C-alpha cells in the first residue's frame, strides 16, 4: 500500500522534528536542532533493516519515492516565495557579508573533504 510508505515518511519527519525541538530546548536555543537530519537517520536505518523483519513492499516504497521526486518542484516553489527584494535592496553590507560567507565556504569544501579520506576516522567510531 502506497500509504504505508507515506505514513512511514511522515512518522520519521514528525519524530525528527519533535526530537530536534527537544534537543534545542535541552541546549537552550530557540531553534530546531537537526530535526530533519535526525528524521533522515531514522528513514535510512528503517530502509536498511527493511529486508529482514520489517519489509517495505515496492508499492509502499513508491510512496516515499514520490515525495523524493517531488523534491525539486518543492524547492522551485520555495525559491518563488523568497523575500528577494529585501535580499537585494538592504544595502551593500548585507550583500558583501552574504557573498563573502559563501565564497569562504566554497573555498573550504575541498580542504575539509580530505578529512578521513583514505584513512580511518580519528574518533572511536567503529565504522
Amino acid at each position, binding site marked *: 500500500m502506497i500509504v504505508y510508505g507515506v505514513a512511514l515518511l511522515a512518522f520519521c519527519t514528525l519524530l525528527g522534528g519533535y526530537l530536534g525541538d527537544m534537543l534545542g530546548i535541552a541546549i537552550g536555543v530557540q531553534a530546531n536542532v537537526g530535526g530533519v537530519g535526525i528524521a533522515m537517520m531514522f528513514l535510512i536505518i528503517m530502509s536498511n533493516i527493511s529486508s529482514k523483519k520489517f519489509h517495505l513492499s515496492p508499492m509502499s516504497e513508491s510512496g516515499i519515492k514520490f515525495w523524493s521526486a517531488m523534491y525539486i518542484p518543492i524547492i522551485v516553489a520555495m525559491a518563488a516565495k*523568497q523575500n528577494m527584494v529585501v535580499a537585494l535592496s538592504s544595502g551593500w553590507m548585507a550583500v*558583501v557579508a552574504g557573498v563573502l560567507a559563501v565564497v569562504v565556504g566554497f573555498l573550504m569544501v575541498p580542504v575539509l573533504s580530505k*578529512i578521513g579520506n583514505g584513512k580511518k576516522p580519528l574518533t572511536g567510531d567503529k565504522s
Partner: protein
Amino acid sequence: MIDSLEAVLIKNGILTAFLFVGVLVWFSYWFSNKFTRGHLHGSAIAITLGLVIAYFSGLITDGSKGIADFPLFAGVAVLGGAMFRDFAIVATAYGADIDEIKHAGLAGVVSIILGVVLSFVVGAVVAVGFGYTDAVSISTIGAGAATYIVGPVTGTALGASSEVIALSVAAGLVKSVLVMVGTPFVASSIGLNNPQSAMVYGGLMGTTSGVAGGLAATDPKLVPYGAMTATFYTGVGCLLAPSVLFLIVRVLFPD
C-alpha cells in the same frame, strides 16, 4: 467567467501551486535543452526563475513572500514552505548509503562547527568594515552571515536594534540565494561530486534552503548527504553565536 475561474484557483491553492511549479519546471527543462543543450541544468534554471519571479512579485506586492503574496498563488507558500520542504528532503534519504555517512561523519561534524565560526567571522569583519563598533550589532550581523535564522535569534537574544536584525536577515538571504544559484557553477572546481564532499559542503554552507536548492541543481543524488549536515547548522549557530562567539567579540570590542 474569469471571476469564477479565479475563485476556483484560489480555493484550490495548493493545486494551483502544483500547476504553477509544473509549468515553470517544464519551461526550464525545455529552455535548458533548446538553448544550452543541457549544460545549464533545468532545475538550476527553474530555481533561478523562481527567484526572479519572487523578486518582481515582491516589487509589485510589497510583500515578503514572493509570488505567494498574490492571492492566486498563495498555495506556493504552502508547497514551498518548511513542512513540504522538510518532508521531501527526508524522503531523499531513502536509499542513501549508511556507510558513506559513517565514513564522512567526522568531516561532517568539523564542517558544521567551522562553517558557523567562519561565516560569523566573515560577517563580523564586514560589519566592522562598514563602521559598526558595538559588540551586539557586530555579533548579530556575523550571525546573519551564518543563516537568516541564526541572525534574528542571536539579535533578539542580545537585544540588537530591529534595523540590525533586518540587516542580518538580509545577509542570510543573500547567502542562501547565492548558494542556490552558484553551487552548480563551482561544483566541479571544489570537488563537489561525492557523498563525503556533499556532507562537508552542507555543513560549511548551512543554509538548508540554499544547500537543498544548490545540490538539486548540481546532482540530486547528493541531496541527502548535504541536507543531513545542513540541518544541524542552524541549531549549532543559534548555540554558538549568542554565547561563545558573542563573548569573544565583546572582548575585542568592549563598550
